[in-house]
């Protein structure tokens, strides 16, 4: 675990040094959306938004939090929560162990307590490096515990989603996390809690059909793919090609399912504004 932590810290320090121009590199990184290559330094300076087309590339959970939280305010919650293998699914434990090695994550969600411009909040952030951010029991449990913790401490809850949907290897137990998280969010909101849901590329399936769609405030990064069924499944079902921009954040905004689209560089400002507007639970 210590090794993982120091690797994570090293990476964050490297990013910061790159931003500050202390490190130079001739490495280039391609964009999965437009296919164009740009200097990796350019990508990093732009928080991994494509310098050519503006595509908001998936980023890891700690990096996202590091860019949003006040320095020094990050305190991880439920760090030890590890995944289960309820179906005894062949090869699954080995897969989980390999991913823990390569990502430093126990599973696809990170929960934390932190501050944005001095406003305290509870965060849960999904990380698509870990089995596409799919929701198994550990992700469902972490989201539910984050909501319950926020309820106990009377703090706002902010969740960043990125998920391919259900964790197939956990079968029906994965499906039940939709019920668990929806119920936990509902209970938190009934007690007066503010929940801000933030979609990122891509969020589909059981996460869209549970906690991610229940925000008091619904936000998304530009261009994020958001849906219940994935575009390929829909195309196979209706046997026609989907139009350009279908199921993207801009499309959802047009259809009434989002409050606002927030570019990556603006999360801190937007969240700080919303948290300030909800201080003292709306009482003067």
């Amino acid at each position, binding site marked *: 675990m210590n090794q993982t932590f120091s690797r994570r810290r090293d990476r964050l320090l490297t990013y910061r040094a790159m931003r500050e121009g202390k490190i130079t590199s001739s490495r280039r990184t391609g964009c999965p959306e437009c296919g164009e290559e740009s200097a990796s330094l350019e990508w990093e300076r732009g928080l991994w938004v494509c310098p050519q087309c503006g595509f908001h590339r998936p980023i890891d959970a700690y990096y996202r939090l590091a860019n949003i939280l006040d320095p020094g305010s990050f305190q991880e919650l439920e760090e030890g929560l590890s995944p289960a293998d309820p179906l005894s699914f062949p090869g699954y434990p080995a897969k989980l162990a390999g991913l823990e090695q390569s990502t430093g994550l126990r599973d696809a969600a990170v929960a934390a307590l932190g501050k944005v411009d001095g406003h305290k909040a509870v965060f849960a952030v999904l990380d698509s490096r870990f089995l596409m951010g799919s929701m*198994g*029991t550990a992700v469902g449990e972490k989201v539910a515990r984050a909501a319950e913790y926020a309820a106990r401490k009377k703090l706002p809850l902010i969740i960043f989603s990125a998920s391919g949907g259900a964790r197939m290897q956990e079968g029906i*137990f994965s499906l039940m996390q939709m019920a668990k998280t929806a119920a936990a969010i509902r209970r938190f909101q009934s007690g007066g809690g503010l929940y801000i849901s933030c979609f990122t590329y891509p969020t589909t399936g059981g996460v869209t059909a549970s906690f991610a769609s229940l925000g008091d405030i619904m936000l998304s990064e530009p261009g994020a793919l958001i849906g219940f069924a994935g575009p390929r499944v829909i195309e196979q079902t209706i046997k026609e090609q989907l139009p350009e921009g279908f199921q993207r954040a801009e499309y959802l905004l047009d259809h009434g399912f989002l409050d606002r689209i927030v570019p990556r560089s603006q999360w801190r400002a937007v969240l700080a504004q919303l948290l300030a507007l909800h201080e003292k639970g709306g009482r003067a």
Partner: protein
Amino acid sequence: MSRYTPEEKVKIARDPGRPGTADFIAALFTDFFEQRGDRLCGEDPSILGGIARFHGRPVTVIGHRKGKSLEENLRCNFGMPSPEGYRKAQRLMRQAEKFSRPVITFVDTPGAYPGKEAEERGQGEAIAQTLALMSALEVPTIAVVTGEGGSGGALALAMANRVLMLEHAVYSVLSPEGFASILWKDASRAGEACGVMKLTAQDLRRGGIVQGVLREPEGGAHTNWEAAFRTVDAALVKELAALDKLRGPALARQRYEMFRAMGQGLPPAGREEP
């Protein structure tokens, strides 16, 4: 031990000759008054719902409808609901709570419809809101999985105080075909998927996902509807009587705690919290 393999059970669960929601309503309830429309933009016949009497007592009954003839199948989209269906279900559940009626649901769907318009009108949001609403209802709720319990589209009507399953019904995170194509990139391995998914009523009972398995007549519910009706009727009477002992907030709490506990083998919440 069951005489059928999980793969055979999937076939039985999908048998068009099995009694569906409309059949259960006709056989077990009286005075059924169908309620239509979501009051927002449409009516989705793939979810059938309304008010009826169950042993004389007014209840709200809701279920997936696949339809019996091809014409009906098409009208009901083979039991695959659109957001309008889930929003109609929400409306009926809110009314049930307002008028202190228990909610009884029948679950039988391949899944929510993965269509263009369904996405455009917020399929994910509709399912999420149905789950959130059901989780907090302060009236007794019982779900019976009668055939195919497919994915979130099934769960959206199954977040109940008691979830019961007919002996040969199945309930899973995704269809075995979808599961095989996602995990192994090969839909033809669906049979193998049935084996590893633990989707039979017996497996789900052991896993604590459902609370009761209802015995089907010899040969399956499709061979003897009357016997299936008697079994389901008796189970509903029994479960309803048990839930009647709980008051509204206790019903919501029992349901919350039951679903909250699903996904075992995880360590307890951290003791020292910041």
